[in-house]
């Protein structure tokens, strides 16, 4: 299957005026024209096939939004080449725009003072959606996202969760081939997040809409995106499936042993002790092929063992480990 998005060696550099600290600095900056160069994206390459759902993940300022903006034609790359649906997005911004849907989590594209339905209607005209198709899509999205009871209310009266569902629905009204979402779940409560995630996964599965989303929230990726692209400091760190990331880092399963009474310190070769609360001890299994049986065999039968729990690593854990392998960014990661 040929790629729907191809990014190769893309970089983006911004120029920002220097600000000097303090009152004296402020007065001096009235006269100075110094700039600092910010390299938001550096030499990033990847390809995305039709129907994929890809999570674009990284800490704040990692260049996630910049990448989305280049793929949607808003920003021009400083270097490298970019192709979306066979076109260079910036050179064909409007043609490109007609075939994609974009949702910006923190800024609304709906008309604040008017009912949701009016924004949808304007969208129909802007994207020239045939009437029958529009009616079908609207009916489908209204049911799927449970918007029926607020479609005729002014946007200013909606909750954040309702508004975000309306934003996503609007971005899908014209049957886009690709849906870009920049932080779609930011600020939503648990129930709204869950609804949004389920819906996006379903749209991807049933309609084959390619989804690319940036997020802080790892659960977004776990539930929507089989594939993960991780960036930091503008550079690509990892591109692949989540299980592969786990494997690449070592599985890092966590084993919890609970004893009837504190057995004292225990040292094992198959498992590494991480926390010791006396009667409860946590171990990490560093090697992929270590089984519980191996650990219990090594431990022997001389202990008053009450309970054994094995936890698969949470995605947070996986990614934290990944960032910790880059010490200088550890503090900022997640």
């Amino acid at each position: 299957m040929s790629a729907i998005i191809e990014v190769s060696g893309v970089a983006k550099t911004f120029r920002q005026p220097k600000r000097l600290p303090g009152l004296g600095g402020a007065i001096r900056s009235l006269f100075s024209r110094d700039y600092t160069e910010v390299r938001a994206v550096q030499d990033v390459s990847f390809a995305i096939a039709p129907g994929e759902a890809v999570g674009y993940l990284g800490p704040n300022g990692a260049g996630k939004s910049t990448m989305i903006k280049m793929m949607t034609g808003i920003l021009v790359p400083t270097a490298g080449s970019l192709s979306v649906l066979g076109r260079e997005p910036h050179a064909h911004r409007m043609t490109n725009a007609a075939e994609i849907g974009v949702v910006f989590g923190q800024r609304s594209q709906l008309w604040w003072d008017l009912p949701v339905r009016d924004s949808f209607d304007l969208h129909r005209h802007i994207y020239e959606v045939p009437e029958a198709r529009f009616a079908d899509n609207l009916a489908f999205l209204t049911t799927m996202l449970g918007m029926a009871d607020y479609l005729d209310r002014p946007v200013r009266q909606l909750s954040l969760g309702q508004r975000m569902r309306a934003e996503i629905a609007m971005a899908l009204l014209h049957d886009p081939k690709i849906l870009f979402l920049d932080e779609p779940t930011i600020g939503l409560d648990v129930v709204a997040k869950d609804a949004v995630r389920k819906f996006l996964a379903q749209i991807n599965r049933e309609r084959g809409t390619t989804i690319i989303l940036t997020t802080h929230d790892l659960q977004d990726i776990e539930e929507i995106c089989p594939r993960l692209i991780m960036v930091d400091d503008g550079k690509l760190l990892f591109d692949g499936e989540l299980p592969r990331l786990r494997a690449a880092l070592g599985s890092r399963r966590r084993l919890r042993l609970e004893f009837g009474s504190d057995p004292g310190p225990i040292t094992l070769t198959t498992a590494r002790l991480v926390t010791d609360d006396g009667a409860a001890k946590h171990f990490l299994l560093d090697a992929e092929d270590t089984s519980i049986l191996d650990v219990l065999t090594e431990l022997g039968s001389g202990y008053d063992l009450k309970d054994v729990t094995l936890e698969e690593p949470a995605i947070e854990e996986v990614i934290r480990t990944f960032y910790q392998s880059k010490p200088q960014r550890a503090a900022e990661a997640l």
Partner: protein
Amino acid sequence: MKARAYAAFTVNAFQSRLAYRSAVWSAAFGDLVFIFARIAIWVSVYGAATSTMTDGVTLPQAITYAIIAGPVLYWDFARLLHDVGTAIQTGDVAVYLLKPLHYPAFLLASHIGHFLFELLLVVLPVVVIAGLTYGMVPPASLFHALAFLGYWALSFMMLFALASLAGLAAFWLMTASALEWFLMSIMTLLSGGLVPLWLFPGWLAAIAGHLPFAWVSYYPAAVYLGRLDVSQTLLYFAIGLVWLAVLLGALAWLWTRARHRLIVQGG
């Protein structure tokens, strides 16, 4: 302690403006163009007139009046009005009720900061350039020079009180911008900032000369030029103080009403 807190608001406002360097240059340039337009009008009408004096005022005096009554005294009250209007419309004004401070006093403190900023970085350069280009006459006497300083302070307070009142009125009318336009139209004509009261028809001058707006531009500039003798200078200063007391009283009363409304009706 309290006084120091308010002084901090003044410094804060001053500093916040320094971050917008291009805005400083643009404002100064825009003001300069404005005052050149005003001066050009006087040069033109005096040039065409048969005598060098109109109503006992010479061209250099008219130019001096234009500079003082315009950029020096008539500061941009739109910022103040907007601050108040926005705080009210967004409900942010409630935040000030939580703090141990008096909102109008806070406004005064921070807008003194804005005023000083504009005076130093916008008005002064404009006055120097306009003055060097066209010439300015000195104050009529030492008395008038000193009196002008008093009138200047009075002018600032008067405009502050008027703009704050208009801003607070947004509580009931829910639109700060229309109030800004209304206040602007009154000030354009009745403050004497553009046309000195001596050019008004007698009846209009008599009315305008006793409304508080004339203390913003007309009286301070007229005192500077020595159009008022010593006793008149003192008398009109006293009248100005009475007007200011009335306006500040109205402001305090309106704020109490607004606060009551906020607390009882939740905005």
